[in-house]
């Protein structure tokens, strides 16, 4: 049976694994994805928070990036949180940075500033009755998006969650809270 994959190249992947377990997923249905063989075993993928330059370099260097791109073309659902959303984006503002280039958005890194400006606040998400607690850590925002992109959340007029078909991107970190609604929702993609 296909497993749920969490990219474990670098970042807070353990927090996503824990969140899926809280959402009722059996640990045996979860898989840390580091190499092609792992990717082949999963039918959906979360790209966690972390550092986008680090993960970008490692995905490029060992070929896993191309493999993820191919699976995404075939319709595999992917959810990127924070760094993960940067990895999914087509463009990074002000930087010539390699990304997977799957989601038709432009992102701005560290859009709220340094760590002292990290914050948490309630965020409305289209499709959810109650807001989620958005934990923003040196978070990116979406500064431009194509017509195929559905904006799910804005915070102070900044776009912080988007969906494009089977691809989901959030600026914030639901995996650091005990609220599993977004993890459960992603499993329905």
């Amino acid at each position, binding site marked *: 049976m296909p497993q749920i994959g969490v990219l474990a190249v670098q970042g807070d992947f353990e927090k996503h694994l824990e969140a899926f377990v809280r959402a009722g997923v059996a640990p045996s249905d979860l898989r840390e994805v580091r190499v092609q063989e792992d990717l082949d075993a999963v039918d959906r993928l979360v790209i966690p928070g972390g550092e986008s330059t680090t993960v970008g*370099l490692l995905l490029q260097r060992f070929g896993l990036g191309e493999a993820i791109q191919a699976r995404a073309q075939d319709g595999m659902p992917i959810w990127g949180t*924070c*760094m993960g959303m940067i990895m999914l984006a087509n463009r990074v503002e002000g930087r010539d940075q390699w990304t997977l280039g799957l989601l038709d958005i432009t992102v701005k890194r560290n859009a709220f*500033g340094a*760590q002292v*400006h*990290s*914050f948490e606040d309630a965020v409305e998400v289209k499709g959810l009755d109650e807001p989620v607690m958005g934990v923003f*850590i040196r978070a990116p925002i979406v500064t431009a998006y194509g017509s195929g992109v559905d904006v799910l959340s804005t915070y102070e007029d900044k776009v912080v969650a988007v969906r494009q078909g089977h691809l989901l991107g959030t600026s914030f970190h639901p995996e*650091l809270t005990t609220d599993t609604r977004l993890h459960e929702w992603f499993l329905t993609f």
Partner: protein
Amino acid sequence: MNTLPKANTKTWREKVGLAEMLKGGVIMDVVNVEQAKIAEDAGAVAVMALERVPADIRKDGGVARMSDPEMILGIKSAVDIPVMAKCRIGHFVEAEILEALEVDFIDESEVLTPADHANHVDKHAFTVPFVCGARNLGEALRRCAEGAAMIRTKGEAGTGDVIEAVRHMRTIMGEIREVQNAREDELYVLAKEHQAPIELLRDVKALGKLPVPNFSAGGIATPADAALMMKLGAETVFVGSGIFKSAASLSDSERLKSQARRARAIVESVLFYKDARKLAEISRNLGEPMVGINCSTLSDADRLAERGW
């Protein structure tokens, strides 16, 4: 740079959250913009901005203090990854200055000369998260009690000798296992022995790990060293002098190229620490590592890890 902080900017979740984002990575000491860019391009998850790497602090002697804000700001503007900086143990004004500079993490570090013979900084009073060094479980938990959002083994900074980092990591992990195996009613005595709060010992027993991420530092010089620390339980490694003190005999331009290769190899070794074949590939042709100092030849006064209470 001084927009007012938003409401809810001091939560524990964000402080530890940033440490979580750095897991599975390499944090590199850099002394100028050129090195910072090499580190970022090699895949560092963060840089530690300081005027002298620990190997030079050892060589120069004297009092080692917080770095010049000018150089810290220069590095901050040159890279997009988080920038850390060091304050002296107990020197809360240096910490306040670093917070005003908006560094992303403060290392209250034994590598600098301590400013207080008894007290560490009250880290709960700050918005910026702190990392602190530890040699054993009690020291780690005392730092957590003061508000550290990340612990790193101290090792022996600036030596390129991994033996002390190994000793400290084995000690901490062994003491965690001991707490896990203890009965609830034995935790009071363990709290006394470790000189640590009982509540934090209960957390350790429940979690089977420290309440905050546990990184490793102090003597890591090669991809094999980094992988060794990961296998012993580190969640990320700091590499101080090990990168930018390597290839010392080469010309300037050749040296930078060699250091960039080593930096990149150490990043890769943290990802593939369980895969010896990959490590063999990664370790090839890296040139000369830092010469280093054998820790067993250090006098007590030269042992930085003894600093901190």
